[in-house]
Structure formats: structure tokens, C-alpha cells
């Protein structure tokens, strides 16, 4: 007889008050597959660190492999953290407080995961700090490194009060006081986080946009940044809310609870949709400019890039229309009217679109030949690469699950029980 809603939860001392969580055994049971993936991923990472990057299928041509592509993707998807923080603390959209904590956790997961993979991805992780010690400020990667590291610190500081508010931890007076005081400075951090995110999302775009050696990726600049700098910022800002919407929906499906009110979904959809419309517009202008101006000025014809199978012209069409324009219209005009399911589906498409864009910028760029006697190349990641990435996914799922279980990610959860 289920006399207590938290019956069987051995860890009830840690679970927040007033919410229902599945029994601890079941929770563990659900985590087991992810723990296995985590272990395999750890082994793969160990192999890469101990034996070197020959464990991957990267090569001199595909110097950037699947990791960089996925890093770019998850950092774009993690943009929800900065953008929600920006909306809540700077623009005072208090409705979004309902997903703010979740957004912070997702941001933390994405950024820490990305940095973790980057540490495995570089050949000499022990020299990583050289970038701080001897920075080349002209490199987009320097900008990225500085901003991402700082932003991870910001995210950790933002995540800290959420952790400290855990039922058990807050009994420690110092923790209680600390979370309270951290909470008070949060608008400052949100501001800094927005600033940092703005630059590193952009710099990630600039990373490939500045490559004059790769006309496929190269974009002309506005001020000192190529146009991809700005496109990446807008696309990340657009994808962030979509991803928050998506993860919130998944969390609510998995936990079988309503976690936020529908109007929060609608608001997220509207924000994402409107930014995406702007993005699609700018991206189209940029693509046309690039096709008609940049590429011809380098003595090539733009369409030549889209003749190589399997990355034919469909990839451009898919990126801009199928995964860009279509979901943006759904999100923008359907936010008030459509059912949540439609919004979720559109969000999935938005996220796919962003991932596809990052794929095009990294993998497709490298696969295209630059010299006429070059070959077109494709590359298949090794299991170590896949496993190391799945490690991050598993790490994210586990961190998020633990956070969801023991921390109050969704303040509206108790209220939602009433309605």
C-alpha cells in the first residue's frame, strides 16, 4: 500500500519537500544503463589520454573530428542558460524563473561536458593552460577558451546555490547563508554570463568563419568578426530556449509530472521562434552574399561546394528551410495555439537545425578539397570517439537526473500538482 508518496525512497532526507520522486531503487535502475555508458566512455577517454589520439579516427585532414562538431553543438544547445538568465535577471521576464534552474543545470552540463571533451581532444592536455599564459588574442580559439572557462566558472557559481538549497545541505548554516548571498549577486553573474556567452558563441562561429584557406567556411567580416560570429550568437540564442523546452518536456514525461505551466512553454516557443526567424533571414542573406560575392572573389563558384556527394545541395536546403524556416514559423505562430506536442516537435527540429549547421561548418568544411589535386574525404569516428561523446551525454543525463531528484529545478512543480 503506497501510504507515502515517497515510500521506498531511502534517500528521502535529500529529496525536496512537497514533491514526489520515484523510489530510489527504480531511480538507480533507470540510471544503470547510463552508468554503463559512463564507464565505457571513461575507458575510451583513458585510452585517448594514455595512448594518444591515434585511438580516434581523426587524421591530418580531419584534424577536427566529431568531437569539435559535437562540442559546438552542445555549446549552442547550452545557450539556454545564458539566455534564460539574461531574460530573467536583465529583462525581468519572471515567468521564465520556472525553468531558470533547469536551464542553469543544462548549461553547466553542456559547458563542463564540452570542456571535458576538449581536454581529451587536444594532443597535450597538460599544456592547456598555455593558452592563458601565452594567449594569442588574434585567435578565435583564444577567445573561446577564455570565455568558456570563465563562463563555466559563472555557471558553477550559478549552480552552487541550487545545490546548496538541497534540503539536507541547507541545514548547514554556512551553506544557507552562502546560497542566499549568491542568489543576491545573481543578476551580476547573469550579466557577465551574457557577455561571455555572446563572445564565445560568436567566436565559435568565427572559428571557421575566419579560415581564409577554406572558402566554404570563410565569411567576410563585420568589424573584426566574420558574419558567422553573429549568426552563431543568434542561432545559439534561438536554439537555447528550444532545447530548454525540449528538456523540460522530456523531464516532465520521464517523471510523469507537470513541471511548468503551459504558458512557459508558449513563451519559450515564442522567444525561440522569433529569434529563429531573424536567424533564418540573416543566414539566407549571408548565404547569398557568400555565394555571389565572397566565393566568386576567391575565384570559385559557390555551387561547386555542393556537388560533392553525399553533401549535395540538400544539406543547404535542409539547414535553412527544413530545420530553419519551418520550425521557426511553427514556434512563432503556433505558440499560443498549437498543442505542446507540436512545439516540442518544432523544438526538436530547431535543435537538429543547429546541429546540422555546426556539422556543415566543421565536418563538411574539412571534407571539401581546397587544392585542385586534393581529394574529397569523409571520415568515420572510431568507437572511442563515439564513446567519449556518449560519456558526456551520460554524464549530462546523470547530473540532470540527480539534480532533478535532489534539487528544486522546477519551482512550479508543487503548484502544478494543484491544477
Amino acid at each position, binding site marked *: 500500500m503506497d501510504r507515502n508518496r515517497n515510500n521506498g525512497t531511502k534517500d528521502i532526507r535529500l529529496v525536496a519537500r512537497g514533491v514526489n520522486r520515484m523510489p530510489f531503487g527504480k531511480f538507480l535502475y533507470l540510471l544503470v544503463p547510463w552508468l554503463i555508458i559512463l564507464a565505457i566512455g571513461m575507458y575510451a577517454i583513458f585510452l585517448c589520454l594514455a595512448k*594518444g589520439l591515434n585511438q580516434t579516427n581523426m587524421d591530418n585532414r580531419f584534424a577536427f573530428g566529431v568531437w569539435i562538431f559535437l562540442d559546438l553543438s552542445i555549446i549552442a544547445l547550452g545557450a539556454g542558460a545564458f539566455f534564460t538568465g539574461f531574460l530573467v535577471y536583465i529583462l525581468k521576464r519572471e515567468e521564465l524563473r520556472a525553468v531558470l534552474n533547469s536551464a542553469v543545470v543544462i548549461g553547466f552540463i553542456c559547458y563542463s561536458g564540452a570542456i571535458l571533451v576538449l581536454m581529451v581532444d587536444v594532443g*597535450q592536455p*597538460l*599544456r592547456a*593552460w*598555455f593558452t592563458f599564459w601565452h594567449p594569442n588574442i588574434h585567435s578565435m580559439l583564444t577567445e573561446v577558451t577564455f570565455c568558456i572557462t570563465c563562463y563555466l566558472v559563472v555557471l558553477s557559481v550559478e549552480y552552487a546555490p541550487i545545490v546548496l538549497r538541497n534540503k539536507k545541505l541547507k541545514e548547514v548554516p554556512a551553506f544557507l547563508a552562502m546560497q542566499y548571498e549568491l542568489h543576491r549577486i545573481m543578476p551580476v553573474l547573469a550579466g557577465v554570463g551574457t557577455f561571455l556567452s555572446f563572445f564565445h558563441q560568436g567566436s565559435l562561429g568565427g572559428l571557421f568563419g575566419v579560415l581564409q584557406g577554406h572558402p566554404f567556411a570563410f565569411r567576410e567580416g563585420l568589424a573584426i568578426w566574420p558574419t558567422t560570429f553573429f549568426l552563431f550568437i543568434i542561432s545559439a540564442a534561438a536554439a537555447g530556449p528550444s532545447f530548454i523546452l525540449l528538456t523540460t518536456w522530456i523531464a516532465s514525461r520521464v517523471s510523469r509530472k507537470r513541471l511548468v505551466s503551459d504558458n512557459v512553454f508558449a513563451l519559450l516557443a515564442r522567444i525561440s521562434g522569433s529569434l529563429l526567424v531573424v536567424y533564418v533571414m540573416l543566414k539566407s542573406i549571408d548565404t547569398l552574399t557568400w555565394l555571389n560575392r565572397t566565393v566568386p572573389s576567391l575565384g570559385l563558384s559557390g555551387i561547386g561546394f555542393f556537388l560533392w556527394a553525399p553533401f549535395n545541395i540538400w544539406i543547404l536546403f535542409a539547414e535553412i528551410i527544413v530545420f530553419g524556416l519551418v520550425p521557426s514559423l511553427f514556434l512563432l505562430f503556433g505558440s499560443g495555439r498549437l498543442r505542446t506536442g507540436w512545439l516540442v516537435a518544432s523544438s526538436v527540429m530547431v535543435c537538429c537545425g543547429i546541429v546540422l549547421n555546426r556539422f556543415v561548418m566543421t565536418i563538411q568544411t574539412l571534407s571539401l578539397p581546397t587544392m585542385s589535386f586534393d581529394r574529397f574525404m569523409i571520415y568515420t569516428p572510431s568507437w572511442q570517439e563515439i564513446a567519449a561523446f556518449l560519456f558526456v551525454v551520460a554524464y549530462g543525463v546523470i547530473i540532470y537526473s540527480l539534480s532533478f531528484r535532489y534539487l528544486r529545478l522546477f519551482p512550479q512543480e508543487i503548484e502544478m500538482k494543484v491544477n
Partner: protein
Amino acid sequence: MANGISRRDWMKLVGGSAIGFMLTPIPWKILDESAKWTQSPSFPYGRQREIQIHSNERISFSHTTCTLCPMACGVRVRCASERGRGSLEAVGITGTKGHPISDGSLCALGVAAIFLRYHPSRLHRPVKIIGHGKFVPVSLDEAISDIARAISRSSCESVAVLDNQPDRAISHIYRKFVGELKNGFYINPPTCDGVPTRLTDQTLHTGDLAFGYDVNDARMIVSFGTPILDGWGTQRQFASISEARRCGGDKKLKLIQVETAHSRTAQIADEWIPVRPGTESAFALGMANVMVRERLCNIDRLRMYSADFDNAAGDSFMKLIEKYPPAYVSEKTGIPADKLVEVTREVARRKPAIVMFGGNPGSGPFRLDEQLAFMGLNILLGSIGTKGGLKPRGKLPSPYYGLHGSDDSNHLASMKQLSDIPDGSIGVLIMDGADSGCAIPWETVERKLSPAGHTIVSLAPYLAGNAVHADYILPSPAYLETADDVPTPSSATVASYSVVSPIFSAPKFSVRPNGFINSLAEALNIRRSSRSDFSGMEYILKKRVEKLHSMAKGNVFNAETGRSERLSGLSLPQFLERLKKGGCWIDDGPAELPPIRYSFLGGTHLPRNNVPVQGEGNNGPRELVLLPLGTRGVLTAAQSNPIMSKLYQESGLRMSANTVSVNPSTGRAAGLKDGGKARVRTENGTAYVMVRFDKSVMPGIIQASVVPLTKSPDRAEPKIEDSVIDICKIDSDSTWRITNAMIEPA
């Protein structure tokens, strides 16, 4: 609670320590030092490498001559000696500047050769092979007594020495040794680079006078499959061809490559004439036909000097070429008749012209009757003995006899080729370690071995190439350790001579070939009185140099100064000193051409009245022609030098072992995929290959690269996979030009 240390106290201690920790140098120093560790030689294994790169080493240079192929390149070895370690090591190698034969250039094999002393397949003791790839150490004495026993037992079978680089001092020792035996053979592989002396003897009746190609003055080279731009000839000849091809106007050398395969030379020649497989000689006879018909040659003169040029009775060259009118040749070769006529006219116009043939280290020599056709073309062109044509070169003295012979020469075994040896006749085979640069498919040797049992001894320092087939491997000193000499390269028109003095002392386990022959002779009780004749390389070389010095002609190159002096101005010790320090003697010019008569159809060998055109007719729907192609040093240790992975494995420059190129249409018809694996089947066996589609390859051809199999270089492995050359069809005359094959996806 108040007494004892509570958890809270621990927390405080840890907190305080953590803050204190950050204020100490520990974390920062470890961060810094760990980064320095990644920069140090102990990364990543935590211990220092045994050999570190020291910049304080004393650097010296030594000059010597390369022994990797017969082309006699001068090399300058950069040696480092580190104090404390005491030993001298080769740390760099370049060509000797101004060297009369190589002029400071080296090929890829030569540049990489400093590593050969440490080649993974080098043997460090005499071994006895006891099965596929398995061997046990054996003492030298034991090996010699075994071999001696085998020799005395094989009374009906013969004892043969296979010497890849003839006319060295050691070659003379071998010849003397087998000459002492009852039925000894001294065998040389066919030359890759020069004109076969046997062919010149057949057609020009010049005896053992050797001919080279005077490419310096040629304006036209018609090459029937000779890898002229891919390892043929001496470095100076190669450079001169390259230079002449770039010249403008009259002096420009034009290179026409007549070859089925799209070889490296075919790729970059001025013109590539892709004849059908096996029809090179038909094309040559077609050219002859056009020349005669259009009076592009001095027919009257030919009639005067040749008995079989135009002979009303019996066979004659005219009769032969009459069968090859352009239309017929076109049909056979697949080359338009116009093209044949045009090419012939151009060749006849652009004299001096040379016709070269054969010599690809992978595809081997042409058959003698084919060679006759090419030689005939040379005669028609008037290229024999003329500037820019084929020129005879002077002979070098033997350590045992002077130029004009002596009693001693009677005891030297005559020089034979594999095709001269009756099948199944060799009981004991001794293979010299020197590389010829060309492939000798094992089957060509194998079918000469006695089926009743045979013993094979290899004197190679490595377990590579044909040494893997030996019963005993007695490792001779490796490159830069060996004392040797290098006679005139076979493509040269001027005689030359270099001495190879060891830069590094040979390791104790190594077996000097002359010492081995000496011990063997002793064990066989041969000529105890003249033991010294076999031993002491130093002595033999000195004797030869002495005889050379007494000729008192030619120039001597001094490697240290880069200048040449007249030999006549040098004393014998000076001459010897120059030669020992990487110098080179070079003759004043080509030899005198004796009055000659031409025999187009060969002196002793009856010509076939039709040069058969192979590779057609028997092509079933899936039968293709397998063409093996190699580059110099194919299947030798020099070629499988680990660093050669840069060319074969780590870049697309050369195709790795068992890679075949096929035309996409051929490949697709056979169901193959570009980059996929396939199985090539011939009547001799099956080889597994990688397929590369190459639209420049002739349809219907499987162009296969012959390279040492790179896998597991560290140990001798049972031969699991056949190399492409192992499945080629070997003709009775030890040639393997054409093999019909099938290819299917594997």
C-alpha cells in the same frame, strides 16, 4: 564532544589546508613541471629515452660509395660521435658533390640508407631456417661444414653462386671458387639498366664488350617500358635526361614511352604510346617497317654490313618486318597506324636517337626475340657506337688477371644467366647479399633447383627478399660496414671504378663473403696453396687497384676536395687513398668500337619468323592481363626500410604492396569498388590486393605494384600472402612479361 576531534574540526583543518595549499608553490610548480614533462624526452613513459638528441656532438663526414644497387653513387655520410658514448653513428647522408657518376644526388633509397644498419629484419647471427619463417641460430663453423657436406654430396647436381652485382672483386672470388668446382655455375640476373651483353654479342658480335647508353647527347629516346624517369641509370644520366628534356630548341630531348602500363615514366614522358600487352616488339617492328619503307635509314649501308638484313634466301630482317605493316601493327597494338608512322618519322628525324627496352624492376626483361626487334631498331637508327647512341665501354681489370687475360682467367667460371641453367640442376645455391635493384621472382630460381634436395645459402644481412627462401643465412656486413668495390654501372658508356671502405666496423657476428668462401674452400679442400686468393678483401681490392693504376689512364675524383686529377699523376698509395675515401676512377671515354657486322636476327639463336603477340585471343570475358610494376630496389631490404613508409604508406606517392590500379570501367565490370579489396587469380596462384581505380590505366589491365609486403617487419613470418610477383607466369626463359589473370572482389 568537546574532547576529541570532531568532523567539524576535520573540515576546518581541510579548509585551512586547502587555502594554505593554494598559497604554496606546490600546485603551480606541479602544473608547470608537468607541462615541462610533456616537453621532455621522458614523455610520456616517465623514463628518459635511451638515446637523447644531443647538440654537443662532434660531427664528422666520411665519403664512400653506395652499394645498394650497381649505380655507384658517391655518398657523404654525416657521423656524430658523442663524448662518453664513444661510438660513431651515421646521422645523415647526402650525395658527394661533383661525383663523376652521381653528382651529389641520391635516390630515395640512398637517402634513407643510414637506417639500414638498424633495419628490423637484420639478422644478428648466422641462422638456419627450419620452416616457414622460423629459424634457429647456428654457428658459422657448423653452417660451413653443413654446406660443404651438401656440396660434396651433390656430385650430380651443380653448385651455383647467384651474384646480383657482377664484376666486383668479390664476384671474381665467387667465379674463381665455382671455377674450381666440378660443376659450378656463376649466375648473374639480367641487367635492369644496360644493354644485355649477350644481345650485343648476338647482334654486333662484340663478345663481352659491354654497351651503355650515351643519353647525354641523345635528342630522342624511345623507351619500351624502361623506367627512364623512375630509377633507371646513374644519377648523372638521370639528371642529364631531366636537364635535356627541359632544354628548348634543338637540344631538347624527347622521350617517347611505349608501354602498356601507365608507369611513372609513362605518366610524365613527352609522349605515351599505350600499346596492348605484349605488343611492344610488334610496335618496334612496325617502326622498322616504316623506316625501311620510307627510306628513313641507310639501307645500302645496312645491306653491306649485315648478312641477314635483306637476304633473298632464308630468313632476313626485311622479311620479318614486311609482316608488320602499319595497319597490321595498329591492329595488334591498338595504336593508330598514323601515329606509328608519325612517331617513326619523328624518331628518324630527331637523331641521335636511342631505343631502350625493358628494365622495370618489377616486370623484368623482355624475351630475347623481342630484344632483337628493339636492337634492330637501334641499328636502323644508326645508333650503334655513335654519339648519343649505344657506346661500348672499357673493361675493368680483374684482381686475378689483367685486361688481356692470363692463365688465371681459365679458372674463373663463366658468367651465366638463370635461363642458361638447366631446370632442376642446382644442388647448392649461394646467394650473394648485394642487391641488384630488380626483382628476381623466386620461381625463376626455384625451378633451377634440384628436386632431389638442395641447400640454399644467403649472404644477405637481412631476412628480406629472396633470403627468406634460404636454408642458411650467414649475415654479411650491412650497408656502410662492408668492404667492397663498385664497377662500372651497366648503363654507363664510360668505365668507372670505386672502392667501398667501411665507415663503421662490422659487428662481430657478421660473415664476410670472402671469408665464407675461403672457409668453404678450406672445408672442401680446394687449392690450399692459393688460400690467400680467396681471403682478405683488402688484399684483393688492392690487387685490382694496382692493375687499374697500371693502366695509367682516366681521372680520379677526390671526394674530399670535389676535384678530379689525372690518374697518371698519382702514385699507387695516393690512388688507393683517394678511392678508399669515397673517390672514383673514371675512364677517359668510351671504348673503341671494333669493326662490327650486324646480325638482326641474332647470331646463334634462330629467330622466330614471327614475334608472337601475346595477351590477346585467349582473353575470356573476365580474363585480364596482370602487369607487375616496381621501382628500384624492389623486394630488398633497402626498399622495405621502415622510413620508406613515407612513400608507400603515409602518402599516396607510391602504391603500397599488392595494390592494383585498374581502369574504372574494367573495375566496375569485375564488380570491384575503388579502395576495396580483391582477389587476383592466375594459373600460379592467388594474391589478395587493394584496388584503386585509375582512369588513366588501360582498360583490361591490372597494373600491380610490386613492393615488399610491409606487415610485420620485425620477424620472419610464414608467408601467408602471396605477393603479386609470386603469381606471375614465369616463362621458360625466366621472363614474366605477361600473365593472364582474373580479378574478383574479396
